[in-house]
């Protein structure tokens, strides 16, 4: 029993770290621009496929994994920015249209990737191979999972430093609180939004490479992570980075426990039920803030 608990503790932490990366990007874009970016998942997929195309041993480039990783993250970030600059900024004043357009972009991206890579799954070359056998706990942890955990926290830490300790980063937080206030202090909204989409895209790209390596890489690989990101973001409080991190671990552990004790048939259902309950009891989520009226 103790072994089971420990193994849940470890496995949950690994997957939660990746969830957190996805949710943070999603929540930042909502916080800063008010855009619910349903194409966020597609960026995850894009990161994984970019890495696949760059590094696969049977492929044309077969770059070293680390180089591929860096480029894949850059590709996701660039795609995210392109989506803002090429589409969203022209329609963002209409929430419904933007919302629907991002869904369509996600589906479009999926079809394009399907066109090139087909629907069958791929496995990525791991950044680091091998694993540790934790005999007493009764589980094994791949180095790749550990690396994901570490990189997730490094990324979160850097982001935290950026948005709280630098003027440039703080202006992102400031914009999420008051767009007009930011403009009044000389902040260029376009610049802030561009950076936000870049960061969100990069985070999605990192998550994509890890999800693609730990799980597998196929055109519809984004659907579940996106659904999980929704749940996390709503539970954590939409727009709150801290909320995303906390809720990511909450949901990550919930899923792990569900699989362990109820079986995977119930995977997902539990999180969804928790989500509904949170929305009904605590509509603004754990760290969402209720703004003063007027």
């Amino acid at each position, binding site marked *: 029993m103790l072994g089971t608990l420990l193994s849940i503790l470890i496995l949950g932490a690994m997957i939660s770290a990746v969830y957190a990366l996805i949710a943070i990007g999603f929540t930042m874009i909502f916080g800063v621009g008010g855009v619910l970016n349903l194409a966020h998942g597609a960026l995850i997929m894009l990161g994984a496929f970019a890495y696949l195309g760059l590094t696969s041993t049977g492929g044309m480039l077969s770059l070293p994994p680390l180089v591929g990783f860096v480029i894949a993250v850059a590709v996701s970030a660039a795609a995210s920015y392109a989506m803002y600059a090429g589409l969203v900024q022209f329609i963002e004043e209409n929430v419904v249209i933007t919302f629907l357009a991002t869904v369509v972009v996600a589906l479009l991206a999926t079809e394009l990737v399907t066109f090139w890579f087909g629907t069958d799954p791929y496995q990525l070359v791991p950044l680091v191979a091998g694993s540790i056998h934790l005999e007493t706990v009764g589980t094994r942890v791949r180095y790749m999972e550990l690396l994901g955990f570490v990189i997730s926290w490094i990324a979160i830490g850097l982001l935290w430093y950026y948005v709280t300790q630098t003027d440039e980063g703080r202006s992102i937080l400031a914009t999420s609180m008051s767009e007009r206030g930011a403009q009044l202090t000389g902040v260029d909204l376009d610049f802030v939004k561009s950076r936000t989409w870049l960061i969100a895209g990069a985070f999605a790209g990192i998550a994509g490479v890890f999800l693609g390596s730990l799980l597998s890489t196929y055109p519809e690989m984004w659907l579940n992570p996106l659904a999980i990101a929704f749940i996390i973001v709503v539970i954590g409080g939409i727009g709150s980075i801290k909320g995303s991190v906390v809720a990511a671990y909450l949901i990550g552990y919930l899923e792990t426990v569900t699989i362990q004790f109820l079986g995977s048939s119930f995977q997902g259902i539990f999180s969804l039920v928790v989500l509904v309950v949170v929305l009904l009891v605590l509509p603004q989520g754990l760290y969402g803030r*209720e703004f*003063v*009226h*007027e």
Partner: protein
Amino acid sequence: MTLLEIDSVTKKFGGLVAVDDVSFTVDRGEIVGLIGPNGSGKSTMFNCIMSEYDVTGGTIRFGGEDITDYRTHQVVNNGLSRVSQESNPIDALPVGGNIKLFTLPNSVVSLRGGASEEEIYQYAARVGLESELQELPDELPHADVRRLEVAKALATEPELLLLDEPFAGMNQQEIRELAATFEEFREDGITMVIVDHNMGGLMDLVDRAVVLDNGDKLMEGPPKEVTTDERVRKAYLGGTEVP
């Protein structure tokens, strides 16, 4: 005879007390001015009466009935209507359609209810909009949009009309016309509460004024009394020497 009774109403937003234990009454047939500097809690008070906000404490009675916990549409159907400070017509509907919306019965099975064209014409005519019925709101000049707001409120056949800064953005000529319209309403038996931050234009129209300052009721009384009151002067002038 008391129509509206505000009894110790308090409204807090988080730590901010927007309306603090305010009481006053409005009699049938009166026009009452609710005045005070901007931010003194007038609009909040209206929002509490209309149940746009839940009050933090106190009771609101209308025609003897406790309407504190009613929902907005119930308040309206009870005979209260409000013209808000911001004009928010539905841009996709012409003036006539905007008025018609306010005459519809609150029934999901009523497919063809609501005012007839003739009745809608009458509502519009009472504020002088009868020739603009087919126009879309965003094609109207500002003063007409304000008139449309009044016509919409009128279309709910209210006993008591709450008017929130009805004269905002109008020139003196337009203000005089609208004030005359309100006088006509009074003759039709409609009771009115008018919010304005500016006492000047209002004092000829109102029978009585209630002054709010910083969420507190400062005083109430006939216009003359109010305008000469020292506390009111101080509230308005903010301690600045009167030049």
